[in-house]
């Protein structure tokens, strides 16, 4: 099945409903289909086998995504926040291609063999112009829909392949067609080069929900747009939510139109989600866990789970606020041990998934097993009722004297200390233990004594999990999606490195 069919269906069934943009001047589903087809005809004339996209969020993003799909060409949104040299290396890797570049970013892109550069304004004009309306399009066989380059904290970024079949399977199995009321609108603040930015377009269109794109995230613009555009749905990453809550608390704003807020893309600190539930009691919170290689979400902790957890006396139910909920119905999920054996509830291992939305494929490598399973490289466990707890990347596990220690639970404990604003726990080389537990602390106000924090952890966990190396810092290094740059931090905290 073809991603463009999702737009076709919405345009057939609700042509006059707003699809993309603001209440005042947004595009309807009918107009969006019209423009996507004109854009496809124009892009076809520019040549290239791939369509690269270097630019901010906006209605041009869904038009370019669907236009590429109509042509059967992979759509490759690139991270414009990369340094120029790294960005240009990615551009060169998309050749032969046509690259749609924001007008004010065009100066950063060097000429590369086989890459035709077009400006976003030219693309938008062609999509809106009358010349190509109704132009004949080739009958494209759907294959690769999207090419997403991973953040590449080590080495060159990997190109993850998502085919039309993966993405459409995800959409039609998780979203009710035109299930949204016609006054619903979703605010998209994740960038175009992130899987959540792509899935937001596809699921939003299929559900018939208007999409409002923030060009780039700032907490002020998010709150302002949510208020003026009567936003009902949004997805944020944990660091965004924390900054949004600061503004809501300061301004006494409670966003009455907001119905649902989903979050994902990293571990949500418990104090942040508790504050969110308190500040926005009318909002349904959803925690979604997924990866680029799985076409977005594979497990969901729903609104009722959140309320049960926050009001529960039962510690087991309360702990679920730290889980990512249950795997999607159409998907298989297993926790496996080092020998590949399936582990029972409560035991920590590697999360494996299988299903039609799972790609597990890169440009030069397919990571799926012969029977279709994808090893996520995330550690985690299922509880007795099937709730999934994710402990983070297996690469981040600290191995101290043969014992595997997950940084996540130590970070959670430290974050509950009243004088801790932010924290990262990681392993640093140690002559005696191989690795030892180190903590980088951003204090809230006056820095607490390391001994006090050590006693705090020891009383709640155990001594082997108590950090032995402490560092107090003004801030921790994050990338623009709020992901902690652990390798950078480890290098900075390794003595003599």
């Amino acid at each position: 099945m073809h991603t463009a069919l999702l737009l076709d269906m919405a345009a057939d069934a609700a042509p006059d409903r707003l699809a993309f943009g603001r209440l005042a001047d947004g595009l309807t589903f009918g107009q969006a289909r019209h423009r996507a087809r004109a854009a496809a005809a124009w892009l076809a004339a520019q040549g290239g086998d791939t369509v690269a996209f270097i630019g901010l969020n906006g209605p041009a993003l869904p038009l370019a995504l669907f236009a590429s799909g109509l042509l059967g060409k992979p759509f490759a949104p690139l991270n414009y926040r990369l340094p120029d040299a790294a960005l240009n290396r990615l551009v060169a890797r998309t050749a032969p291609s046509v690259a749609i570049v924001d007008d004010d970013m065009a100066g950063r892109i060097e000429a590369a063999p086989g890459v035709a550069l077009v400006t976003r304004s030219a693309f938008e004009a062609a999509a809106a112009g009358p010349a190509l309306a109704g132009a004949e399009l080739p009958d494209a066989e759907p294959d690769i829909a999207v090419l997403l380059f991973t953040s590449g904290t080590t080495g060159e970024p990997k190109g993850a392949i998502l085919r039309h079949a993966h993405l459409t399977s995800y959409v039609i199995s998780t979203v009710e067609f035109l299930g949204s009321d016609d006054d619903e609108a979703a605010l998209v603040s994740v960038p175009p080069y992130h899987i959540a930015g792509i899935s937001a377009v596809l699921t939003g269109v299929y559900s018939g929900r208007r999409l409002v794109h923030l060009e780039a995230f700032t907490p002020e613009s998010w709150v302002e747009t949510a208020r003026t555009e009567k936003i009902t749905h949004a997805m944020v990453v944990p660091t965004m939510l924390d900054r949004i809550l600061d503004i809501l608390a300061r301004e006494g704003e409670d966003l009455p139109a907001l119905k649902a807020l989903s979050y994902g893309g990293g571990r949500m600190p418990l104090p942040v989600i508790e504050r969110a539930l308190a500040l926005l009691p009318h909002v349904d919170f959803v925690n979604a866990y997924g990866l680029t290689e799985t076409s977005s979400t594979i497990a969901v902790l729903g609104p009722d789970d959140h309320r049960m957890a926050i009001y529960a006396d039962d510690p087991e139910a309360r702990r679920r606020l730290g889980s990512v909920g249950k795997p999607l119905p159409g998907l298989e999920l297993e926790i496996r041990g080092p020998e590949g054996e399936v582990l029972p509830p409560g035991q920590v291992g590697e999360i494996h998934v299988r299903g039609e939305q799972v790609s597990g494929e890169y440009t030069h490598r397919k990571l799926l097993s012969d029977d279709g399973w994808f090893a996520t490289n995330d550690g985690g466990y299922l509880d007795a009722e099937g709730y999934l707890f994710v402990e983070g990347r297996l690469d981040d596990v600290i191995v101290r004297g043969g014992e595997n220690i997950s940084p996540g639970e130590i970070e959670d404990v430290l974050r509950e200390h009243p004088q801790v604003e932010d924290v990262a726990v990681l392993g640093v080389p140690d002559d005696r233990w191989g690795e030892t537990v180190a903590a980088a602390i951003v204090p809230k106000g006056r820095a607490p004594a390391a001994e006090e924090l050590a006693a705090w952890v020891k009383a709640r966990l155990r001594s082997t999990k108590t950090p032995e190396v402490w560092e107090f810092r003004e801030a921790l290094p994050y990338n623009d999606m709020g992901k902690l740059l652990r390798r950078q931090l480890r290098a900075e905290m390794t003595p003599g490195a």
Partner: protein
Amino acid sequence: MELKPGSRWRSAVCDGEFVVVRPPKTPVSLECGGAPVIPHGEARGQGAPSADHAAGAGAGKRYADETSGLEVLCSKAGAGSLSVDGRPIAPKDSKKLPASD
């Protein structure tokens, strides 16, 4: 008819359009409104759904035939209802998940 995953079909007797989500395990005939469906690219002729196959098909609904394993998504609504080798097939119950993107 070869009902390949992703292949698109239309009703010969109404506005209904369909896309195959899961292929049948053995060859079957997919009908809408009592008449075999035709490839999406072909124009439909005259005719109307037969009385016993006129319950309609809804856009966005998934229809599954347990016997053959065939599953299709209705991409455009129509007045005819679906059958496989003459057996009517019903829409699958869909459990709506909370929006997560």
